């Protein structure tokens, strides 16, 4: 039937996604107002190259690409874990309202509501608060079933409204400064937030991989998972905490970038083998999608710049619809 064994299929999916990420990164470093040829990129990365190229790559493009790859990977990994734990493809952090709540808290710190805490910490607090609230409102079913999703939708809507209220009540300059937070953009990221995200992603990815075998059994019914030795409550709690950490820290960098957490795991699942929870593939797909989307946002209407969140929404929606209407698809149940 197939020429590849299951293991080979997974490995080749990861390899393909890694190559796609590399291609997106290379294109992002090369293209823009100042075009830098690939060999010049290598020169700059090796410590040489001319001064203009050095400035463009090191100061402008590389930090931005790095931030894009890290946020994309974090959003996608969080999405993949939450989908698995909730056994529902719609249960991504963006839909559960975690993104919006994290944004509301981060905006509160940026527009100066008197709370002088770094956006990362604020976003994380918001993400944790939203998740705890959604979990509490979901009642006995926990993360299972639609109560969790509907509670999350409500929380997300409220948090979005709170963000708008805050922005409408502050001076226009402060509102402008906080605007990227509302659409998702890589333009106004903070260096500290990126560093914190890098550390958070390393921890989150390690935890996700450690939880991998247990997460895999969550694709079956609870009794089957328990029968295979999975500690359900512990696995769910740790996975949820991991998703909150990743989402909160990613929002602190780029704001609520939609669709990445929903689509990257779908793509990873479609490429990988049945019955696997594609953690690594999701992270790679998310990073590649985010970097490519930001590149499109920079180039499409240059010199005007589209926020990356707009591009992911525009590019992502048709893909989502295609997955839905595609017959005999196993990538959306």
């Amino acid at each position, binding site marked *: *039937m197939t020429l590849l064994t*299951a293991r080979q299929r997974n490995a080749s999916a990861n390899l393909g996604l890694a190559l796609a990420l590399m291609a997106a990164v290379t294109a992002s470093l090369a293209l823009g107002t100042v075009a830098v040829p690939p060999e010049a990129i290598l020169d700059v990365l090796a410590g040489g190259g001319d001064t203009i190229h050095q400035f463009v790559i090191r100061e402008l493009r590389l930090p931005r690409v790095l931030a894009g790859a890290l946020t994309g990977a974090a959003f996608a990994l969080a999405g993949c874990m939450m989908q698995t734990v909730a056994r529902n493809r719609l249960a991504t952090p963006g839909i559960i309202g975690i993104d919006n709540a994290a944004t509301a808290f981060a905006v509160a710190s940026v527009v100066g509501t008197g709370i002088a805490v770094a956006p990362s910490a604020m976003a994380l607090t918001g993400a944790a608060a939203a998740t705890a609230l959604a979990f509490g409102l979901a009642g006995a079913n926990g993360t299972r079933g639609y109560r969790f999703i509907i509670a999350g939708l409500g929380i997300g809507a409220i948090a979005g409204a709170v963000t708008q209220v805050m922005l409408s009540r502050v001076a226009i300059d402060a509102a402008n400064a906080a605007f990227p937070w509302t659409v998702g953009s890589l333009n106004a990221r903070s260096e500290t937030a990126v560093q914190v995200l890098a550390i958070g992603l390393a921890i989150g990815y390690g935890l996700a991989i*450690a939880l991998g*075998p247990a997460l*895999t*059994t969550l*694709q*079956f*019914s*609870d*009794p*089957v998972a*328990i*029968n*295979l*030795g*999975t*500690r359900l409550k512990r696995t769910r709690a740790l996975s949820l905490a991991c998703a909150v950490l990743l989402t909160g820290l990613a929002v602190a960098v780029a704001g609520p970038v939609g669709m990445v957490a929903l689509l990257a795991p779908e793509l990873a699942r479609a490429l990988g*083998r*049945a*019955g696997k929870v594609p953690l690594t593939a999701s992270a790679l797909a998310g990073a590649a999608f985010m970097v490519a989307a930001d590149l499109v946002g920079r180039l499409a209407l240059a010199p005007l710049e589209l926020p990356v969140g707009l591009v992911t929404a525009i590019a992502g929606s048709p893909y989502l619809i295609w997955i839905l209407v595609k017959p005999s698809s*196993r990538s959306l*149940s």
Partner: protein
Amino acid sequence: MTNADSTPKLEARGLTLAHRHTPVIDQLDLTLPPGQVTAIVGPNGCGKSTLLNGLARVHAPAGGAVLLDGGDIHSQPSREVARKLALLPQDNSAPEGLTVTDLIRFGRQPHQGWLQRWTNDDQTVLEQALAAADLAPLADRPLDTLSGGQRQRAWIAMSIAQQTPLLLLDEPTSALDLGHQIEVFELIRQLARQGKTVVMVVHDLVSACRYANHLIAMTDGTIQAQGAPGEILDRSLIHRLYGVHCDVIQDPASGTPVLVNLRKAP
């Protein structure tokens, strides 16, 4: 192959199981005979599936305890329990596209350490499980392309790969036609001959009598009778269980009880 002496002992002591504060099983004591096939029978809603789930630590007790080898099953590491006891629940849906081999591989998970690779031993066990369930030609077929009987055999093969001395099955033949039922029961009997202790919830009383050597008859969460089917099954027990009248005769071929002349109690 395990023998009856080394088989882990599974028992319930004062076990109370509740659904949302309503007790389904109330203070039940039970010791499962090692190395035998036990069938739990009773009318709908008598708590037989709940009891099986309680014994398999899926349903946490509201009181009392399930003891595995003398220790509370809930205080033992779940993976260790998963190497002694396998449960085949009724709701066994699988991710779409999963193949027979993929499914059986999951049975090895309790035996694998952190980041431990698939070993030659695991491969041998996988192939034995495929052969035992007569599934070798279907090894690479997705589960959703199989017949109900084949799919159920694949799930049993997963339990076989788990290599547990105890096997708990919740209505393993429900929704299967006669041929597939026999297929699955024969496989279960074969596993019992190899030394496994089997406990199954069975809907059909006559099949339970034919394939089990120990019968537990329940109503309303309590045990009405237990013992060898031929010894405990009579008209009055059947009336107590199902509220019907009948005559019990002996199956000339298997020597087990068969119900005839069934009629509604006046």
